[in-house]
Structure formats: structure tokens, C-alpha cells
């Protein structure tokens, strides 16, 4: 049996207006339900790639075929606003700096995940249905932060804010969750809390995760599969356990040393 990959990226390229070639033709498949981690040096194009997938960045060339068993679409070809909306309903994202609305309550932030399914007029008055609110609360519970629902988002700690961001993304009911260095601005302990919630989302809700990470120890602990970028090109694809010293040098350059966090 050959299940089609949920996302099949072929020859993805991205050149920024200033001429920087951030992606020079990257190809790999993302299998449904996996926890795929993207590693690579700073500037290797990890963020660019994630942001191409949900079209926060415009890819320059290539294909990204999405296939969830019901619809098959090339994400690069999406043009209309409604198609982009459809894409973002299916592909959620969390960021290094959480990107919450600081002055709004936690619950209101989580409800942002329902914006794409709420009419513009209703959303301008902040009217969300009872089901939407119940769902938002459900996901806040899932990330263990329901009691903070009515607190302003900027009053929370970094780890808590990232959990709110996860809840916000879940409220979209996405099939894929992109995570761009979700723990890079957190301390080691909090970092594991957040990673554990991501694993829970992956295993319990079956959401496919594509996650940029810097620390190899985290990669070994959480990833089911790894791809590595270097200078905008794919240099490794495989099992996290088989990244040995030779591979490490290839990805990070000779003389680099691994840093461990526990």
C-alpha cells in the first residue's frame, strides 16, 4: 500500500526581491501524521521554507502538492484570496515570538483561529458562535491553560504564550501545523513543556507537524524524521537517530560542536 504524502514538495525555489536566493530547489515529501523536523544553520532557509508552505512568502518556482486523501492541490498555484484562506485553514502556524495580539485576552487570541470561518462583519464586532468559543476553550484545556482564558495575552510568560499560540492554531482545525523555532526564545525547562504539547497534538490529534529546530537533542527526542537544509539546499533526509558526527559536520560545517540541553 502506498499512501500519498500529505505534502509533496518539488524543486521549491525562493529568491527574495533583494536577490538573496534563500531556497535553491528543495524537494522532499511530508508523510501524513509525522513529526518532521527541519534543521540547518542560521540563514539556511528554514523559515523561508515554512513560510512558503502557508504562503506568507511567495515561492518563486516549484511545486507543493497537498493531498489529504480528499483534495489534491498544488499550493504554489493558489491565487485567489479564497484559496489562500482554504490553505491557511488547513495549515496552521506557530512562531518563535508567538505573534499573539498583546492587548487582547487569551480567549480572544485563540478565537482568531476561527476568523477564516467567520463573516467579516461578525468578526469586526467580535461575535463568535457558542460552538466556536467552546472549541477554543477545549483547545486551551488541551494545552493546560484554560484558567488563563480571560487574562491579557501579554501578561503571560513566554511558554504560556506559545501554548496559547498552539491553541489558536488548533482552533483552525488544521491538518498540518508549521512551527518556526517554537522554543528558541524559551528556557530549557519550558522548552520541553511546549515540545511535549506539540507531540501531544501530533499523536493525539494526528496533526502532521513540520517544525524548525536548532537543538539536536530536541530533534532526537521529538522528531520522527529529519530534513536538513544548508545554503538553501536539502543535504539530509532521514531518521533522527542516524545523524552521526559525519552528518553533523556536513550540515553544520567542520569544527561545529553539538550543544546539549536537557
Amino acid at each position, binding site marked *: 500500500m502506498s499512501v500519498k504524502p500529505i505534502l509533496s514538495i518539488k524543486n521549491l525555489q525562493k529568491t527574495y526581491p533583494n536577490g538573496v536566493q534563500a531556497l535553491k530547489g528543495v524537494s522532499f515529501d511530508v508523510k501524513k501524521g509525522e513529526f518532521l523536523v527541519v534543521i540547518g544553520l542560521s540563514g539556511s532557509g528554514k523559515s523561508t521554507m515554512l513560510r512558503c508552505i502557508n504562503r*506568507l512568502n511567495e515561492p518563486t518556482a516549484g511545486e507543493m502538492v497537498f493531498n489529504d486523501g480528499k483534495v489534491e492541490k498544488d499550493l504554489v498555484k493558489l491565487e485567489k484570496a479564497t484559496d489562500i484562506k482554504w*490553505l491557511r485553514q488547513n495549515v496552521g502556524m506557530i512562531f518563535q515570538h*508567538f*505573534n499573539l*495580539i498583546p*492587548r487582547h485576552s487569551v480567549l480572544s487570541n485563540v478565537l*482568531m483561529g476561527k*476568523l477564516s470561518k467567520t463573516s*467579516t462583519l461578525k*468578526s469586526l464586532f467580535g461575535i463568535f458562535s457558542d460552538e466556536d468559543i467552546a472549541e477554543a476553550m477545549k483547545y486551551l484545556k488541551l494545552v493546560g491553560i484554560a484558567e488563563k482564558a480571560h487574562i491579557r495575552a501579554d501578561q503571560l510568560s513566554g511558554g504560556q504564550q506559545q501554548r496559547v499560540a498552539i491553541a489558536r492554531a488548533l482552533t483552525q482545525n488544521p491538518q498540518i501545523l508549521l512551527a518556526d523555532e517554537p522554543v528558541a526564545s524559551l528556557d530549557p525547562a519550558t522548552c520541553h513543556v511546549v515540545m511535549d504539547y506539540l507531540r501531544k497534538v501530533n499523536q493525539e490529534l494526528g496533526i502532521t507537524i513540520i517544525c524548525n529546530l536548532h537543538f539536536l537533542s530536541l530533534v532526537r527526542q521529538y522528531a520522527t524524521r529529519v530534513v536538513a537544509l544548508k545554503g538553501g539546499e536539502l543535504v539530509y533526509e532521514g531518521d533522527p537517530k542516524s545523524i552521526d558526527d559525519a552528518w553533523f559536520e556536513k550540515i553544520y560545517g567542520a569544527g561545529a560542536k553539538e550543544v546539549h540541553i536537557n
Partner: protein
Amino acid sequence: MKSYVVRRSILDGFTFAFLIASLAVWIINPTDEQALNMKLNVALFFAAFIVGTFVSHVLTKMKVTTLGEALFQPPYKKSVVSVSWYKTFSAWHLIVLLVGLIIVSIIKTKFSIYELLNEDGFNGAMRLFKGIFSPNFAILPKAILNIIETIFMAFLATALAIPFAFVLSFVSAKNIMTGTTGFWIYLAMRTLFNVMRSIEALVWAIIFSVWVGIGPFAGMLALMIHSIASLAKQYSEMVETVSEGPIEGVQSCGANKLQTIWYAIVPQVVLPYVSFTVYRWDINVRMATIIGLVGGGGIGTLLVQYQGQAMWPEVGTIIVVIAIVVWAMDQASAYIREALK
């Protein structure tokens, strides 16, 4: 051509042409007829300007720093050689320019110590001051009624300007108006605001007093037009400095443009908006007083009536009332803006 070269040439060209023109007027002492011959004079001035830009260019090539070069040159060209200021060309350029400006303005304003110390005039001013410093408080109720009119005129102008400025501020923010069409709209809006603001509220008041008749309504409309342009510009500058994070966060949830503005941008700009608006009301109260002088209603109109009849004690009362209100508004708006930070 690099824009700093254009700026340097214009500044240097103008200072050169200005000095030449001043010298020429001094030496030739033209008759009225000659002075009013606009075509010839403009042509001569322009010729001098061209010569000036040329001189500026040659001097710069010779590594002599003109005032324009010193002012506009890009940071990487700025040398840190410490030469005493009086040994530099640009310093003398500036000194000659300032001296020239002062001499010409003294002549142009008919500056005269004689008039200032003239006994008749001095006694007249003394009478006026005496009147003003012994205010006639019998007209106080009238003055208060009129200043209330002024305050509400300013308030309504500000309040009516808010919705227009709010909507326009997004249309004229660079980070929202992306793409080619967007850029042109942005440019057109910004130009429109600059034109609207460069026409003084006083001039708008004259226009509207012809249109809707003399009175507070004309004054209010004048202030409103001016406020829309000013607020929209200030608001849109705030929109341009919002942080990208929340915007991307909301966009990644599939929000459309309006939802993004409402949820990611508005919360970031709302406090500065309120602060600008309170300040604008404060400014409008002051402006409304002046606008009253040309028939815009309120306390200004009352002031000009008494002044016309040389009723100085009454004028004194009005000045006191204006001073108190302006001071109070100024304090209140300062406290409110402080609290909003």
C-alpha cells in the same frame, strides 16, 4: 542622480542666487517698475541659481565643502578630520548667508528703533495695556458663553474628523498599500493631505464663511478639514510603525485584509490614536480662537468686535478667559496623553 546631490545643488544654488540678488538690489537700487518686472527678475534669479549650482559642483569637485555638501552628504562621506570651524568653507558660507538674511529682513520689515520709541505710539500702547490690565468683568458671562461655543466648535471638528481620518489612515499607510496600485494610492493620499494641511485653517475658514455664511459652522468646517488631514497623516505614520508579529499571527489563521487590520493593527495603534486626537482637540481650541477673528464665530469673533471699537477693558477680559481655557486644555490633554503612554 543621487538625491543628496540634488539637495546640495538646490541649497547652494539658492544661497548663491540670494546673495547675488541682494547685492544687485543694493547696488542698482531699482525703481518700483523695475522691481515689479517679474519675468526679467525671475529669469535673472534663475540664471544666478544655475551659476550657483555650477559653482557648488566645481567647489565640491575641488574637495571644498560647501554648506549644502556639509549638510546633505551621506554619512559614509563625512570625514572626521578636525579642522577649526573658521578654517572651513562651509562655516563661512553659513555666516555670510545668515548675515545676508538678517540684513535683508531688517530692511524688509522696516525695523525701526525710532518707531518703537516714538512717544505718541508708546502712549497709545500704554493706554491699551492699562485697559487690558483693568478688565471689565461685566462682559464675563458673554465671554464665557462665547468660549463655550469655541470649545464645542473645536470638539465637533475633532469628533467629525476622527472617522474620516481613521479610515484614510490605513489607505495612506505604506505597509498596507502594497503593490503598484497600492503605492500610487498611498502617494496620492499623502500628497492630498500635505496640500490640505498646507492651506491654513484660517484660509479654509474664509472659504467656508463665503460658502455657509459667517459663524461657528464655517469655523467648525475649516477646523474639521484641517484636522482630517493632520490626524490622517499622524495616524498613518503610527500604522507604519506597528510590529509585524501579530499581523502574521492573524494572517496565518486565514484572516482577510479587514480582519487583519481590525485585530492585528488597530489594537496596536488605538492608544496613540486617542492621544493624538486629544492633542488635536487642544490645538483646535487654540485655532478656533484665531479662526473667530475672520468670522468663524466663538470667542475670536467677540474679540475682534471689541478690538474694532478700541474697548480695551473688554478685550482684557476676553484675553483672560482665553488664557485660562487654553492653559486648562493644555494641562488636561498633557495629563491624558501621559496616562495613555
